[in-house]
């Protein structure tokens, strides 16, 4: 089963033009069809790494593989790669360039030389999916922050990428909106897409992700399944990372003998079930 990894960063090192080392020998394997969360403090290199995954940045050394093949940095190959690996940036205000929601979303597919009538269909479909069909005729600057975020996600989904990378998608959103967006992602996962996101929210990452990477100072400092990474990894620096609350409580309950050793809960429902 060697073809399960859709994206791979192998020993990737990157320096910004001012000499700051942003990535320092990063290895990261992204499993196809899975939910991967990247945790880590500000400035750990998460965004820089993401920009490598669709060829915006080129590693100084090391390589990036998409579907087991090293990516090439010529225009045709890059367009193909960027069609398949979409990035939703953190601040929708900077990602949105058009005052019209409709035009904004049509930008990506238009660059792929898809016929106009097909683009129109795709745009309509994705607007329904993201529940922004009612702001179709509104200018971008009329939208709330949450709506802008939805548009910026639609921007990417409309291109039907295989991998969707999200930089801090939950920041500034209210819980209600976070849930709405997450249910869209769940559907995408069902369709076989791969999702990678960075976040500061350990509780969220713990119960959402299939696999977690922790980065610090341009390095991967820990990786593993959520239950494993937060319980077993000794070398984690807990000053940067809080333990998920659920896990802390689980450990207390385990200590008091109320819960079984082997049934680590991923959410509250599971916790309820596991308590003797």
């Amino acid at each position, binding site marked *: 089963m060697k073809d399960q990894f859709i994206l791979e960063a192998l020993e990737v090192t990157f320096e910004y033009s001012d000499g700051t080392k942003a990535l320092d020998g990063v290895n990261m394997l992204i499993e196809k069809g899975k939910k991967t969360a990247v945790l880590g403090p500000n400035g750990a290199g998460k965004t820089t790494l993401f920009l490598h995954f669709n060829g915006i940045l080129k590693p100084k050394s090391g390589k990036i593989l998409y579907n087991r093949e090293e990516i090439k940095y010529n225009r045709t190959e890059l367009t193909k790669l960027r069609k398949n690996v979409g990035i939703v940036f953190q601040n929708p205000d900077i990602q949105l360039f058009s005052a019209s929601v409709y*035009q904004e979303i049509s930008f990506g597919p238009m660059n792929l030389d898809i016929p106009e009538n097909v683009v129109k269909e795709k745009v309509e479909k994705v607007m329904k999916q993201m529940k922004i069909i009612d702001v179709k005729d509104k200018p971008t600057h009329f939208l709330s922050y949450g709506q802008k975020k939805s548009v910026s996600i639609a921007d990417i989904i409309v291109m039907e990428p295989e991998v969707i990378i999200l930089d801090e998608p939950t920041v500034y959103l209210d819980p209600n909106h976070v849930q709405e967006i997450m249910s869209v992602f769940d559907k995408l996962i069902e369709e076989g897409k791969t999702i990678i996101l960075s976040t500061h929210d350990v509780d969220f990452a713990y119960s959402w992700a299939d696999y977690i990477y922790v980065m610090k100072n341009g390095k991967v400092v820990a990786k593993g399944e959520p239950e494993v990474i937060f319980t077993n990894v000794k070398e984690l620096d807990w000053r940067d990372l809080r333990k998920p609350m659920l896990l802390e409580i689980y450990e207390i309950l385990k200590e008091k003998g109320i819960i079984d050793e082997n049934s680590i809960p991923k959410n509250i429902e599971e916790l309820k079930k596991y308590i003797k």
Partner: protein
Amino acid sequence: MLIDNYSYTNRMYNVHPVEKLLFAFLTMILCFVFDIYTNIAVIILMFMITVLKAKIPGKVYIKLMLIPFSFLMISVLTIIINVIGDKSAALISLDIFEVTLGITPKGISTAVTLFFRTLAVVSCLYFLVLTTPVVDIIDILKKLKIPSLFLELLQLTYRLIFVLFDAAGEVYTSQNSRLGYATLENSYRSLGLLISSLFIKSYKDSQDLYVALEARCYNGELKVISKDYRFCYRNLIFIVLIELVLISTSILLRR
């Protein structure tokens, strides 16, 4: 921004933008060609259409009409009041030092014509901008074969105006909360800081925007799909009719 708000929410939002543009510009030309009566008719006509048909509140419309009023008043008065040699030709005159200032009947008639023409043309502009969003206007320009780089700059500028406007607002509030505008001296300093930080932010954001577009396969051209509009023949006939009525009555009433 008031005008921008209404351009998206008015009742004529869905009318084909070319129809609206045509109507506004044809009428504008008539304002220049014909005399004061045509102009007064246009002022009334545009008010009626904008307020009754597009449902822009009358109060808002009048408030907007007052914006250019100070320029109009000053300029018209400057044109009316002249240094004159012959006092007998003047209706009113006044000696200040060695100079005689005065107003002549001819001056008044020029000024009155100018006054009404300006308001009439302004009404046409208001009809256009209050009913037609900038996005649509840029779309029309696209059909006029204007270089795409210029249109892309228009498109970007329009969007970014609101981004920077919000940013400027946030900085202003933050400065105001920290007493930045309590005195005149503070105000200058704060405004200088606001402007320079806005400039830096613009520069940084432009880099980030480029990266975000690149990630969506940007290849040097901002290709997008425009909204579909269909011409409405009833509207077109209406426009032709109104213009014809304006032209014929203007010619007939002219001696």
